[in-house]
């Protein structure tokens, strides 16, 4: 029996999220036109909100599920295992962390009335007005607001009437670029530095969970391909150079899994930073090697493994890449 990844957080939540993400990936794989992809993502996002995922961490009193970080991580792991191209970490972890204590907004978030993108860098505030340029901000298909960290303060910016351009990331997720000059925004917290750091850390942790799950599937698909593909009259899986490469990918994946599990058990910023740092190394290695051992097929968009590889590559850059994490750890 060939390799099958074992989830860190098995159970119904994982299974449901995984099924959802697999179905999503199948539909998106057939769509190449950006507008058609965005429309499909909007349909899927509506389904995610319908399922109540946005309220996973929101208190029951605000209409949420009042779940634990592990409940959310199980969702992220299932979704990540098929590379779901929707902003789970941002909406389900970062947003509710930033909105802690703001019951009305939390209720809106859980109900899908508030659909924020998260702007952590690029904008600054003066006298309650925001200015600056934020690029590549991951976003739900139809963002209603931006939660903006400006210096140590946290603002809510209503996006109605604000122009932005849309893009697609290398992993097929939607982003926006935003440029504003002195637009008024609601101050949520003047002294939100700790809250912002925490939110960013949880975003990084959930990203690690998604990425490690994607790496598991990627290795599984790579093994499947090498078993099936024949060259020189034999399965590629019989060549030691490739077998060793896959063993190295597996060990990198297992080692990262250990770090992510440690960070889930004790989500200190250091544990998260070490996991994210290692994701930079291990994720890049697994993605690159998966592409390499697929040969020409690895270069095609059509191949599910290539799409997962792009997801893993992208994950490094969310919520602080390896150098950002290293800088933090070295400064501590």
């Amino acid at each position, binding site marked *: 029996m060939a390799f099958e990844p074992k989830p860190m957080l098995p159970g119904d939540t994982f299974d449901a999220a995984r099924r959802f993400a697999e179905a999503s990936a199948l539909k998106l794989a057939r769509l190449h036109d950006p507008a058609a992809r965005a429309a499909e993502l909007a349909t899927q996002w509506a389904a995610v909100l319908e399922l109540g995922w946005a309220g996973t961490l929101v208190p029951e009193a605000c209409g949420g599920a009042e779940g634990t970080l592990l409940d959310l991580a199980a969702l992220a792991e299932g979704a990540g295992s098929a590379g779901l191209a929707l902003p789970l970490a941002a909406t389900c972890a970062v947003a509710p962390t930033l909105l802690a204590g703001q019951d009305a907004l939390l209720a809106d978030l859980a109900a899908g009335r508030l659909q924020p993108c998260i702007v952590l860098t690029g904008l600054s505030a003066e006298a309650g007005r925001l200015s600056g340029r934020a690029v590549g901000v991951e976003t739900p298909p139809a963002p209603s607001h931006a939660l903006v960290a400006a210096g140590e303060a946290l603002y809510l910016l209503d996006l109605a009437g604000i122009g932005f351009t849309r893009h697609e990331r290398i992993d097929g997720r939607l982003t926006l670029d935003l440029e504003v000059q002195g637009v008024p925004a609601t101050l949520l917290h003047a002294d939100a530095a700790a809250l912002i750091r925490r939110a960013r850390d949880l975003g990084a942790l959930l990203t690690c969970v998604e990425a490690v799950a994607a790496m598991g599937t990627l290795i599984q698909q790579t093994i499947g391909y090498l078993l099936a593909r024949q060259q020189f009259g034999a399965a590629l899986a019989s060549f030691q150079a490739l077998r060793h490469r896959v063993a190295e990918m597996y060990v990198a994946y297992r080692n990262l899994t250990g770090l992510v*599990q*440690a960070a889930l058990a004790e989500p200190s910023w250091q544990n998260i930073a070490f996991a994210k740092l290692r994701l930079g190394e291990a994720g890049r290695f697994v993605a690159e090697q998966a592409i390499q051992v697929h040969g020409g097929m690895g270069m095609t968009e059509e191949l599910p493994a290539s799409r997962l590889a792009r997801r893993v590559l992208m994950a490094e850059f969310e919520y602080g890449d390896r150098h950002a994490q290293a800088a933090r750890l070295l400064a501590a």
Partner: protein
Amino acid sequence: MDETAELAAFRAEVRDFALTHCPPEIRAVVAANGKLGRKHWAPWQRILHAHGWGAPSWPREYGGTGWDQRRRHIFDEVLAECDCPPQYHHGLRHIGPVLIEFGTAAQKARFLPGILNGEEWWCQGYSEPGAGSDLASLKTRAVRDGDDYVVNGQKLWTSHAHEADWMYTLVRTNTEVKRQEGITMLLIPLSTPGIRVREVRTIDSWHHVNEVFLEDVRVPAANRIGEENKGWTYGKFLLDRERLGGANVAPAFRFLERCRELVARQLAGPAHALKREQLEYRLLLAEAELRGARELGKAAVDAVMAGRPLGLMPSELKLSTADTVQRIGAIALDAVGERVATRFRPVDGSGPNAEVEDIEWVQNFMYLRAKTIFGGSNEVQKNVVAKQLFGM
């Protein structure tokens, strides 16, 4: 007391014990990255045993401590932090578990106490000149003669044979069958007539490994583990335990910290800024990997304690730690660089360069190359992992 407080109290107890009972001259050797031999390990083992802590990894009825995985982890961690030597592996972690699992009552009674109190010293006679990675091709022959086996052949790379009392060894007892089915495990006293131990110097110029020649060596059949021709099973069980050695990453973390101090001390000042930053970054990457391995190690210890199959864990652990530790050694080599590389000296400290500060780092770097070679090389581990992953 709640759990957390209990564990904190346990940590304090171990620390207090380590600092008051582990002889300062032994801790000084560890702190200076010095080489360890029987003269350091054995007294420490005796002290641990006298305190009831001789064998944390053994079942309680054989002298184990009955600690759970977390306590064992804390124990390893604190001892490493206090620069106590890690416990000598060949008795405690290698042949000990084999005796417990497969030994007769008489063998357990004869051998376990000497391992526990550190009075008897063991070494491993597996590898031969013609049998390295392909261990099953070993040729050292044992022929039954009355109540004895008569052993002829040669072992190679036998670590610590020159200071050991006993060698657990794999020998060939049947040449007619599939190679793995003709191997037997024997326990041989190194004082037996017909045994000659010859030093082999390693690239760190340390006397650590040996050649062991066996000529008409008579070994009582009572020193056989389990059944004749079943030695491969016991030998592999032992090798799995050996690779689980990577589960104790605490000494590696201590090594990393020492290297970090070296980098800070050696490369202070603006002239070295780029190099210092690069080495600090490489240290962080190594630390991240060790932290990942630490979790794999905890899971492996849990599995051993619950009697669950280990699967790929021993190989994962070895592959997750061996070259990381090598990388730390390489960072240290870069830190001391030319200053020390030009001052090589024998590991016993003799010669004109005995006083050069940090000189051990060069020897460490060289010694550490062995990490990916012994105990089943990294390439062999990758074969094992791939076989499982591909199902072929």
